């Protein structure tokens, strides 16, 4: 910007509502004639900051300066700035002309000057000839423009825009983005724009302020924010990216997935843990062995302009169990119209602490029903000689009517698959099911995980689960009695790549990228 004069200064702004801290000491300078965007998810405090500047809220602590003057004590109507509200807030009792003229009428500007200025605004926003229209006769986009004109006609130094495009449809939103940028360049004043839409921010801003939970994460130009995000949060919020943990081995040398890579970042401590961002469009797919990493193509999605390819370079943790498909008669009994069913199951000797009847019913998937009334019946009693010792035990489920079924419990010492390097543990049990149960399942992947009691977790924190994927090699429609392997696995290292060249799913490929494509960031919450 040609004019670098600081216009607005926020100094240590704090605000909380009902004990909930919204702003944690915001410091921010905004220059004259800048298009500044406050960007962040809902609840990050961006609108609160804007409303403090507009005068609709007062801060609990800190100062706001405009042109070097502290303005906290001024009511909104004495501040030299105007706001475009989220839902426009046009006055329904006035037509387009009177809405735009409102601020000038308050200032007692003479009628002929009001007319000149309002007409000029109508030309600026492209709504000439609409001055006599009622507000309710306008479309959302037109109301939006009137709201902008109503604010701009007062020739403020600063225009505040509170998610003004949120209520518009996608096409109109794109149009208004260009429109707003054009208006800002034409009138040459400071725009402060609040949005949660990263694309809007990148398109329009001179400066983006990324916020999270009441704190500023990064301030910079769109290019800076995109190419050099300061942490994984900013990288994830702006554009799509591959974010992976690594260690800074030395200046310009970073290690991830047990390989060292040259990069262009320096100034970190030796062996400092960092986050690494590689943008999907910065990775090229090359023949296997020709790139810096090798992997298998997991999926290819056509996205119009390009393909989004997922390549797995390091496999995840796998556990394979046996699924026994038993005959219908083996797991079901009936007594006229009353039916009872249940399956034999495996149990880990370590999981038996405090096990209750309802857990056993769930593990056996024991059910009882009446086929005439289609009514579910409850299991009245569970009898078992189960002990906390490896071995085979019997369990009998009985309905109210006395119909019972007896199955076996295999108590075993289950080995979990542990991957210390990836900090992952995965376990699953063999299980018994009938053909019908497979075919009646509406969400087979989820049911398989439940039946096998498949679980993934972080080795250093058992409460932190890891989502599992499941693969099997049978057709649920035509399955017959027998034993089938089912594999549960965690995702390995995956890279998202944007490319214009098609690659085949399942093929081996190499991934190539340069040292400048690796962006090293400090870990969030890491203090050096």
């Amino acid at each position, binding site marked *: 910007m040609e004019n670098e004069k600081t216009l607005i200064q926020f100094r240590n702004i704090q605000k909380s509502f009902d004990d909930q801290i919204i702003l944690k000491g915001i410091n921010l300078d905004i220059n004259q004639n800048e298009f500044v965007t406050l960007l962040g998810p809902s609840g990050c405090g961006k609108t609160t900051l804007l409303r403090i500047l*507009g005068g609709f809220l007062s801060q609990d602590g800190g100062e706001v300066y405009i042109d070097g003057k502290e303005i906290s004590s001024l009511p909104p*109507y004495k501040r030299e700035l105007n*706001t475009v509200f989220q839902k426009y807030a*046009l*006055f329904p*009792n*006035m037509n387009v002309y009177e809405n735009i003229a409102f601020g000038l009428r*308050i200032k007692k500007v003479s009628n002929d000057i009001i007319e000149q200025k309002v007409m000029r605004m109508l030309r600026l926003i492209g709504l000439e000839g609409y001055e006599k229209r009622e507000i309710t006769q306008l479309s959302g986009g037109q109301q939006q423009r009137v709201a902008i004109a109503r*604010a701009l006609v007062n020739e403020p130094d600063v225009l505040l825009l509170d998610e003004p495009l949120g209520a518009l449809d996608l096409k109109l939103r794109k149009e208004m983005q260009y429109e707003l940028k054009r208006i800002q360049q034409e009138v040459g004043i400071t725009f402060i724009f609040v949005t949660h839409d990263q694309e809007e921010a990148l398109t329009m801003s001179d400066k983006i302020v990324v916020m999270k939970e009441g704190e500023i994460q990064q301030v910079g130009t769109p290019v800076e924010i995109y190419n050099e995000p300061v942490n994984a949060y900013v990288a994830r919020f702006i554009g799509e990216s591959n974010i992976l943990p690594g260690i800074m081995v030395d200046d310009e040398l970073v290690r991830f997935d047990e390989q060292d890579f040259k990069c262009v970042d320096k100034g970190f401590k030796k062996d400092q843990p960092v986050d690494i961002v590689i943008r999907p469009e910065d990775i090229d797919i090359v023949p296997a062995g020709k790139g810096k990493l090798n992997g298998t193509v997991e999926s290819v999605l056509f996205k119009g302009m390009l393909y989004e390819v997922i390549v797995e370079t390091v496999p995840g943790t796998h556990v394979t169990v046996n699924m026994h498909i038993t005959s219908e008669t083996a797991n079901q009994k009936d007594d006229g119209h009353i039916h009872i069913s249940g399956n034999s199951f495996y149990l880990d000797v370590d999981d038996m602490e405090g096990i209750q009847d309802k857990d056993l019913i769930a593990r056996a998937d024991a059910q009882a029903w009446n086929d005439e009334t289609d009514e579910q019946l409850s299991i009245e009693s569970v009898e078992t000689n189960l002990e906390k010792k490896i071995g085979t035990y019997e369990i009998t489920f009985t309905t109210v009517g006395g119909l019972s079924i007896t199955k076996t419990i295999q108590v075993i010492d289950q080995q979990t698959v542990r991957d210390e390097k990836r900090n992952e543990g995965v376990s699953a049990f063999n299980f018994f099911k009938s053909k019908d149960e497979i075919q009646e399942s509406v969400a087979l992947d989820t049911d398989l995980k439940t039946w096998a009691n498949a679980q993934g977790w972080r080795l250093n924190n058992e409460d932190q689960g890891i989502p599992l994927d499941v693969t099997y090699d049978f057709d649920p429609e035509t399955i017959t009695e027998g034993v089938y392997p089912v594999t549960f696995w965690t995702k390995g290292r995956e890279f998202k790549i944007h490319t214009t060249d098609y690659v085949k799913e399942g093929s081996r490929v190499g991934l190539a990228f340069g040292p400048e494509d690796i962006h090293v960031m400090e870990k969030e919450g890491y203090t050096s």
Partner: protein
Amino acid sequence: MKTWRRLAIPYLIWGSFMLLLPMLLIVFYSVIQPGNDVATFRFSLSSYVRFFTDRDFLLILWRSLKIAIETTVLCLLIGYPVAYWISRCSQKTQNLMVLIITLPMWINMLVRTYAWIGILSEGGPLSIVLGWFGFHNVDLLYTEAAVLIGMVYNFLPYMILQIHSSLTKMDPSLIEAASDLGASPFQTFWRVVFPLSIPGVISGITLVFLPAISAFFIPKLLGGGGWFLIGNVIENQFITVGEWNFGSAISVIMAMVMMLLMTLVRKADRKASKEEKA
């Protein structure tokens, strides 16, 4: 959809029968004179002639109009600030205030009006309080002021509730927008808040004025015999004198006057909002 609509027909017939028939009967009674026996009658406008040629009746009509207008104006002047103040309170306080305002309506209007006899009479609470300020032996009961107080007391809640609901329906960001555009709280009120609350004011006026002009037991109880209003005349004609034809004619005249006045109010509102825009 159409078949469902047909289900409404019996209600429509029943409703129009119950609503229209009594009104048509009143109009019918107003233009006839009874004959020698029950089955004979003749058309005549003599009831109307009698009303408009009798100075006393015209005076009572004028007095009723005057007191109804005074009641409405007072209700508006007291009700608007109260409604405005309530609408600026927190939601919890608002609910409580609305409850307090509707609370008296749970008690029969007649009983509450009787209570005012005690309050207003000499030696009652009001005269004691006035006595502290040096006004001794004030007896308001059976004066025009007493009738006015009783009317305002009874009809004020309707005004407050109507205006309050139109104020709370207003988008609060409109007030912020006006302030943002440089309007002081006073300017914001006159240019934005008040014009947008006019529909509430109009329905408040309607709900106060119409029952006020035809009220009969408030003037009867608080005005004693001295404050005869048109409602009392109609009541008398039907119940005491038994001249149903004359009573019906006065009712029709009253209905005409009310219709005329309400049309004028609505026209004035439309004209005002047009001037606002021009």
